[in-house]
């Protein structure tokens, strides 16, 4: 090779076919030619077969009306009016929604497990080791199926018997619903104040920082900045909240049949919402109902892998939401003739119908399972709940709607509507078609709120209303992704911490730092330098792995793109869209993370 040629004259004597540069150039040209030929072959094939099979190959379908129902969307999405493009955008946002939270939680859990594996506590170390060895060596697909279809959809109680969380949240097999703060009609008035608070906080930070540098003493510039921000924003919040007035021409209505509360701006005062009149989101309203009636059938359910017999469940009504509530059989005589009684688990919402077999005057477990003609185990009978002075505060959602349970008029004793499942408790067209039924007397009043309004979830029936809800599919996917990725991150953390020289710990001890300080200020920052680059690729893996959402039934990019592809036949463009969006996400992620990484990394010696 070039080592042999001692002078430029000698190099010129080499024939062209033995010249390294020449061979290289030739090889590249041949490669390009072969590649182009192959490409041309494939493209012509694709085009001809697309034509043959009459498959659309352009993106014009994106502007058509989608008509895909998507249960879960971070943005407003209406399957009736929105386009395929917007449906796909929902998919992208759902992917981001699960991956961003997943990355944060996986990092926290990963660091925790990594530290546990290095802990001096033997049992913690063993737990962490078992965790890592099991999770890392099992496919993510199995874990997603495990968490969603085997655990989160099966083990939690059903929606009409939710776990009530502290602070007003609910948890059931529909997922999790939490109270949440939303911007109200006054938020735009508060926004300038927030910006001002931020500016003041930055000024305070800069001032304090200069002071610290001048004084040459250790100090932290953050507390005054944070205090300034909190003070200014809180003061302005309460100022605005105390002088708050409801928007002019705000109208809040309720549909007595469906129980839907709706708020909008009635700009021409005609008493109904015209096409150009916008609905208002996050309006708080007090709903009052003088008296009303609900009916349900008792039923036998499968819950938490067990059979529940003869239970009735009204939509959950809290104790402070009514003056008087009575539950009785719709046909008391027949029930009495059958010897049926009602036992409450949670008066008045939930209970069981039983027959006092041992005549001790109270319900014993097993008495709800009486056999009748040797075959019937559960018992189905209609129950009515009569309520007086029902009141509830609701907050309209981003579609301008809120809901309360569906009531009938109390005189409606001839209620014929057969409603067996809990999902038909409202929204269905079956009930209240009878002209004789009187209208319910509702009283709906919008309530004045500050710039933010707290929306509490209520009535989990076929879905949650109010607050912020996370579906079981989302939770299952998130849980599996977090647990899976954390097992890899924990190994990185462990390796990173072990790579910090022991002398660092000893030096920290020598200057008098305690164990926690040593870890926080000496070990961890140095370990992070080593951990960061492989951690970024784990974050990317988590994002890409969210494409397994199809197993949880979570509508992310791949799921929605495939539905679009199946509906329109445009499989080729949708697959290009999938790849395009993942590449965009991956590269954007990589750029951001590498920027953070280069900022964090200490300049090499």
């Amino acid at each position, binding site marked *: 090779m070039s080592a042999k040629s001692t002078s430029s004259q000698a190099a010129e004597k080499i024939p062209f076919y033995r010249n390294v540069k020449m061979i290289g150039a030739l090889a590249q040209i041949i490669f390009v030619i072969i590649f182009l030929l192959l490409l041309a072959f494939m493209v012509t094939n694709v085009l001809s077969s697309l034509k043959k099979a009459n498959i659309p190959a352009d993106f014009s379908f994106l502007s058509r009306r989608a008509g895909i129902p998507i249960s879960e969307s971070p943005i407003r999405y209406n399957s009736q009016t929105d386009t395929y493009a917007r449906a796909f955008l929902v998919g992208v946002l759902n992917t981001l929604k699960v991956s961003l939270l997943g990355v944060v939680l996986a990092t926290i859990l990963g660091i925790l497990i990594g530290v546990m594996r290095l802990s001096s506590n033997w049992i913690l170390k063993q737990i962490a080791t078992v965790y890592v060895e099991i999770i890392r*060596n099992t496919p993510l697909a199995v874990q997603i199926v495990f968490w969603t279809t085997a655990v989160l959809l*099966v083990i939690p109680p059903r929606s009409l018997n939710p776990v009530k969380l502290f602070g007003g949240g609910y948890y059931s097999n529909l997922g999790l619903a939490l109270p949440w703060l939303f911007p109200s009609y006054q938020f735009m008035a508060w926004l300038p104040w927030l910006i001002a608070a931020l500016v003041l906080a930055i000024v305070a930070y800069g001032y304090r920082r200069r002071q610290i540098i001048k004084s040459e003493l250790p100090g932290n510039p953050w507390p005054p900045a944070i205090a300034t921000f909190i003070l200014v924003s809180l003061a302005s919040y309460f100022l605005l909240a105390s002088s708050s007035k409801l928007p002019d021409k705000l109208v809040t209505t309720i549909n007595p049949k469906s129980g839907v509360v709706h708020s909008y701006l009635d700009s021409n005062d005609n008493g109904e919402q015209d096409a150009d009149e916008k609905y208002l989101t996050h309006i708080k309203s007090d709903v009052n109902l003088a008296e009303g009636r609900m009916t349900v059938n008792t039923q036998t359910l499968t819950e938490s892998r067990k059979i529940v017999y003869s239970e009735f469940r009204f939509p959950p009504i809290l104790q402070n939401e009514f003056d008087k509530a009575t539950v009785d059989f719709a046909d008391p005589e027949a029930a009495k003739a059958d010897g049926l009684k009602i036992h409450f688990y949670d008066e008045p919402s939930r209970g069981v119908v039983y027959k006092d077999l041992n005549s001790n005057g109270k319900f014993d477990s097993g008495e709800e399972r009486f056999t009748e003609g040797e075959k019937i185990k559960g018992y189905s009978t209609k129950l009515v709940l009569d309520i007086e002075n029902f009141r509830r505060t609701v907050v309209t959602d981003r579609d301008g709607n809120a809901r309360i349970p569906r009531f009938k008029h109390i005189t409606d004793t001839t209620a014929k509507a057969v409603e067996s499942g809990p999902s038909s408790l409202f929204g269905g067209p079956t009930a209240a078609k009878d002209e004789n039924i009187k209208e319910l007397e509702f009283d709906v009043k919008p309530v004045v709120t500050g710039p933010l309004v707290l929306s509490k979830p209520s009535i989990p029936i076929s879905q949650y209303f109010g607050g912020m809800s996370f579906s079981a599919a989302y939770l299952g996917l998130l849980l599996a992704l977090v647990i899976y990725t954390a097992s890899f991150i924990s190994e990185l953390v462990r390796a990173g911490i072990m790579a910090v020289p022991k002398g660092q710990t000893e030096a920290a001890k020598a200057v008098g730092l305690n164990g926690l300080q040593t870890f926080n200020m000496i070990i961890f920052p140095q370990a992070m330098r080593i951990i960061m680059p492989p951690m970024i690729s784990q974050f990317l893996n988590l994002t890409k792995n969210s494409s397994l959402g199809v197993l949880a039934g979570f509508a992310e990019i791949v799921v929605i793109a495939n539905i679009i592809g199946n509906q329109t036949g445009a499989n080729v463009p949708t697959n290009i869209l999938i790849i395009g969006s993942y590449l965009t996400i991956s590269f954007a992620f990589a750029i951001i993370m590498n920027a953070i990484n280069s900022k964090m990394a200490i300049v090499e010696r």
Partner: protein
Amino acid sequence: MIPARKPPMATSGIVPWLRDNMFSSIINSIISILALIFVVLSFFNLFQFIFFEGHWERVWANMKLFGVYTYPLDLLWRPLTAAAITMGLVGLSAGLATHGEDGGEIMVGVFWWFFALVALLAVLGLIFWESIRFAWLIVALANIAMFYLGKAVPQLSKRLMWLWVVGILLSFVLIAGILPADSNPDSAFRFVKTKKWGGFMLTLIISAFGIIASFPLGIALALGRKSKLPVLKYFSIGFIEIVRGAPLIAWLFIASVFVPLLLDQSPDKIPGLYRVLAAVTFFSAAYMAENVRGGLAAVPKGQTEAAQALGLSAWQNTRMIVLPQALRAVIPAIVGQAIGLFKDTSLVFVVGLADIFMVHKIVSTQPESLLITGGIRLELSLFLVIVYWYFSFRMSIASRQLEKQLGVGER
């Protein structure tokens, strides 16, 4: 007189060990007790579920589906012979490895782990599976006999490579068949359509094919990426980064849509298995390239310079000096990648292939399974966890041992 002092605290025995490792401080003691309660409760619940609550009879009743899916029952001896051949080769390789200097004990450790499973299947077969009563016993015997053969005849190691090539081809022919099915519907050697392949057999076929086929492709891409020729370099970089930028599930969908289009064939002419194999190979190759690149970077520059000084050509240098050292260094990473691919084959359900993961979904919706209160998804997913874990866990341990032995990743 010096007053008598108490003896120093004991430093060995159970009590001091507990004191040092679990109850060294008040906070540590609280954590230990809480952790203990957690462990005991988890074990109790798991134990109760596994031994009293679980409906394992549904898993047991579908063992054939989990193994080979709808592969014809009368031809079951063919995949079992293939299993005997491959397990025999595994045994032979492990036996021969006992003579080598490094990696030997690691390989033998893996061998015993898998032999335990084969032996268990042999026992189960003898007791329960009438149709294949002695088949697994033969597999187990082939496995162990070849191990001792390899131990006794070290000269075989020269032929090992060829034996593997022949064995794998033979296994494939056995599973696929050689005679057209329509002319001899009852022939023992008739074709079995890939649609009927499935279960754990398919999982193994896809992952083995993927890792083997992606190996040369990955080396080529890694060399391409390090090449000084810009066209090759940027082509390789583009391929690697684009493939790695999107998830496997997307590539599987693309393969199932595009492969028939690219070849201008009707989709039903190209079986799903081949499309999946194409996708898995290319996907795996991109990751393989990155692993190999790591190995190439680990070869000291002096090696190349020394080769040049000896007058080796660039190709000779790569083939005889750089690659052997680079590949040796990346064996652990490749084992890790094989585990990853083995786990990832569970995604082939998206194109309708019935690997063991898809079979579990099928079993969970069988009418008999739906009759059981609450379904049997918990049992099925636990079963899958055990199956996948049994293979991955031992391989990942081997990968770590190899890493330690090769001194890779040690600072």
